[in-house]
C-alpha cells in the first residue's frame, strides 16, 4: 500500500516533468514548425528504445531571483537508445524550457551523457535548439560550454559525434557542433552564427536576415559547416538513421556489414564517361555503377561540388568514396574542395573505413582569389590526409590525372594500396597542350606555320604520353582495366586488404596544415 502511494507520486512527478516548459510553450514551439525535444528523440530512435536519465535534475542558480524559478529537467533531455539496433547516446535541448538556455546543470547533463558515450564507445547525437548561454548563471554557463567543447575534442576520432541543429545555435554554442563529425541542418529551422544580425548591424552597419546569415542553406552551400541539408525534421531524422548504418560504433571496430546487392543495370559504366577529356559527366553515376544496390550516400552534396564524397557499400562493407566531379568546375581541386575531401579522408581513416578514389581532374584551380585564399595550405591538406591514412586506399584513374592533381588524388606515391587506370586515362606531368608548348617551344617558334606545328606536336605528345601505360610501365599503376571490370577489381582489393596493417613512426600528433 505504502509502495503504491510512492509509485503514484513518481508517476505524478514524471508526468509534470515530461511536459517540459508546459502546454503554452509547446504550442509556441509547434507554431514555429518544430517538434518538441522529446518528440524528436522518439522520432529518431527505435521504438521503445529510449531510456531517459536526469529527468529530476534542477538548476542551482541563486542570483537574479533564479532560486524562485523551476526549470523542468533544466531544459535538456538526455538518455541512451538504439537506431536500427545500434546503441546511441543522445541529448536534446528543450527550447520550451527557458529557451533551451544553457545553465550549469544543463551542461552537466550533457557532459554526463557525453562521458557515457565515450566510456561505452557508442555514437553521440546532440540535438541543438537553444537561445544560448543562460545569462543569469554568468561564468558558470561559460564553464558548461567549455566542458562540452573539451569532451567533443577528446571524443573526436574515438566515437562518432553527430550534431543536429533544430533551432537557434548561436555564439559560443556553435563550437560544439563545429567540433563534431557531422552537422545536420533543416531548412527554415536551423540558425547558426557566432554574432547575430543585430550585433552585425550595430558594429558594422550591415543588415542581413538570420536566414541569409546562418540559415540551413548558407551552411550547406557557402560555409561548409553543415554536412546534411533537409527540408523537414522528418527528412533529417531519416538521414541521421541512414548515416548510423554506415559508420562503426567507435574507432576500435568496423562498421556493421549490411545486405549486399549488385548495382542497378541502369547505371551502365561503359556509357557514362565520354572519351573526350574536356566533356563532362556526373561522377556519381560512376559510383552508383559500382556500389552495392547503386546506393550512394552523399555527404556535403551542395558544398564544393567539384569534389564528391560519401559512403557506399562494397559487398556489404562500408566504403568511403572520394571523386573529382567533371560536371562541376571541371572537377578542379581548389580551396573548398580540398578542405572537404581532406576532412572526409581523415574521417574514414579514424573509423576504419576503406577509401576508394576516382580520379579525373585538370589540376588545381588557377586564380588570384585561390592563391590569396591559401590554396597552397588548403591543397596540402589532401596530400596530408591521404598520406597519413592507414586504411585500405584504392584508386581508379578514369581519365585525366595531370601534375599536382595526379599526385594529390591518392596516387601510389602517397601509398595507395591499389591503383587502377581505365584505358582512356591520361597520366602525365601536365596536359598535352601545355607540355607540348614547353617541350617543343623552339620548333614551334621557328616553324613557318607555328599553329600547325603546335597542333602536330600536341598530337605527338598525346600519342606518346597521354595514356596510362607510361605510369603502368613504372608500376605507379598496378593494372589497366576495362570500365566494366572496375567493380570486380574493387571488391577483390577490398577483400584482400581486410587485414591491412602498417606501422607509422611514433609521434604525439602530426601537424596537418589547418
Amino acid at each position, binding site marked *: 500500500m505504502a509502495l503504491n502511494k510512492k509509485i503514484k507520486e513518481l508517476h505524478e512527478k514524471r508526468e509534470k516533468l515530461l511536459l517540459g516548459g508546459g502546454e503554452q510553450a509547446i504550442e509556441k514551439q509547434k507554431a514555429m514548425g518544430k517538434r518538441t525535444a522529446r518528440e524528436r528523440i522518439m522520432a529518431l530512435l527505435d521504438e521503445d528504445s529510449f531510456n531517459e536519465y536526469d529527468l529530476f535534475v534542477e538548476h542551482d542558480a541563486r542570483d537574479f531571483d533564479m532560486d524562485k524559478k523551476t526549470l523542468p529537467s533544466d531544459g535538456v533531455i538526455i538518455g541512451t537508445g538504439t537506431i536500427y539496433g545500434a546503441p546511441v547516446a543522445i541529448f536534446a535541448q528543450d527550447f520550451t524550457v527557458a529557451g533551451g538556455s544553457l545553465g550549469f546543470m544543463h551542461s552537466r547533463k550533457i557532459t554526463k551523457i557525453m562521458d557515457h558515450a565515450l566510456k561505452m564507445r557508442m555514437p553521440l547525437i546532440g540535438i541543438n535548439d537553444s537561445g544560448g548561454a543562460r545569462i543569469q548563471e554568468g561564468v558558470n554557463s561559460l564553464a558548461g560550454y567549455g566542458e562540452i567543447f573539451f569532451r567533443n575534442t577528446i571524443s573526436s576520432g574515438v566515437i562518432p559525434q553527430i550534431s543536429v541543429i533544430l533551432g537557434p545555435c548561436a555564439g559560443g554554442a556553435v563550437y560544439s557542433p563545429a567540433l563534431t563529425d557531422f552537422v545536420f541542418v533543416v531548412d527554415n529551422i536551423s540558425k547558426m552564427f557566432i554574432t547575430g544580425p543585430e550585433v552585425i548591424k550595430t558594429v*558594422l552597419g550591415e543588415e542581413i536576415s538570420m536566414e541569409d546569415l546562418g540559415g540551413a542553406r548558407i551552411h550547406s552551400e557557402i560555409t561548409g559547416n553543415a554536412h546534411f541539408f533537409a527540408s523537414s525534421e522528418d527528412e533529417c531524422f531519416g538521414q541521421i538513421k541512414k548515416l548510423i548504418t554506415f559508420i562503426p560504433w567507435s574507432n576500435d571496430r568496423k562498421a556493421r556489414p549490411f545486405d549486399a546487392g549488385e548495382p542497378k543495370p*541502369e547505371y551502365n559504366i561503359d556509357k557514362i564517361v565520354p572519351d573526350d577529356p574536356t566533356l563532362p559527366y*556526373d561522377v556519381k553515376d560512376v559510383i552508383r555503377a559500382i556500389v552495392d544496390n547503386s546506393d550512394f550516400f552523399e555527404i556535403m552534396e551542395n558544398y564544393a561540388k567539384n569534389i564528391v564524397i560519401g559512403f557506399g557499400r562494397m559487398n556489404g562493407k562500408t566504403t568511403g568514396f572520394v571523386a573529382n566531379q*567533371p560536371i*562541376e*568546375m*571541371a572537377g578542379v581541386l581548389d580551396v573548398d574542395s580540398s578542405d572537404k575531401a581532406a576532412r572526409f579522408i581523415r574521417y574514414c581513416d579514424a573509423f576504419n573505413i576503406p577509401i576508394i578514389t576516382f580520379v579525373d581532374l585538370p*589540376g588545381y584551380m*588557377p586564380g588570384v582569389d585561390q592563391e590569396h585564399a591559401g590554396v597552397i595550405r588548403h591543397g596540402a591538406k589532401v596530400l596530408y590526409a591521404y598520406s597519413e591514412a592507414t586504411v585500405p586506399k584504392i584508386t581508379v584513374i578514369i581519365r585525366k590525372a595531370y601534375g599536382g592533381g595526379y599526385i594529390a588524388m591518392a596516387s601510389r606515391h602517397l601509398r595507395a594500396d591499389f591503383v587502377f587506370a581505365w584505358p582512356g586515362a591520361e597520366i602525365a606531368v*601536365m596536359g598535352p597542350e601545355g607540355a607540348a608548348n614547353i617541350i617543343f617551344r623552339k620548333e614551334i617558334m621557328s616553324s613557318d606555320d607555328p599553329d600547325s606545328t603546335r597542333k602536330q606536336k600536341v598530337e605527338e605528345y598525346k600519342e606518346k604520353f597521354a595514356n596510362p601505360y607510361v605510369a603502368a610501365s613504372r608500376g605507379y599503376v598496378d593494372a589497366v582495366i576495362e570500365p566494366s571490370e572496375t567493380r570486380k577489381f574493387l571488391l577483390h582489393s577490398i577483400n584482400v586488404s581486410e587485414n591491412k596493417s602498417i606501422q607509422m613512426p611514433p609521434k604525439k600528433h602530426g601537424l596537418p596544415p589547418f
Partner: protein
Amino acid sequence: MDQLKNIDTLRLITGHYKTRLSSRFRNRRSYKPEDPRLILSYIPGTIVDILVKPGQDVKKGDHLMILDAMKMQNHLKSKSDGRVKVIPVKKGDKVSKGSLLLEME
C-alpha cells in the same frame, strides 16, 4: 541519371572544359592592383572626423580621417605626398568595406 544542364566552358591551361561554373567562380572579383591615389575603407565603420580638405597638400603619413570601426578609432593616413582631390564622404557617414573615402590628385 541527371540531365547535364547549364553547361558552360571553363578555360584552363590543360584544355577548355564543358562544365558547370560555381557561383563562387562566377561572382569572383577580378584582381586589381592597389591604386595608391585611393583611400578605401578596409573595414566597415563610421567616419568620425575628416582632417583634410580637397585641394590641400599632404605629406606621406599625414592623418586624413578617422574611421570608427569595431569600437576602435582608426586613423587613415596618406600613402604618399600629394594633393587631396576629392573627399566623397562626410563626417557621420557609415561606410561599407571597400568604399572610396578619399582620392588624391
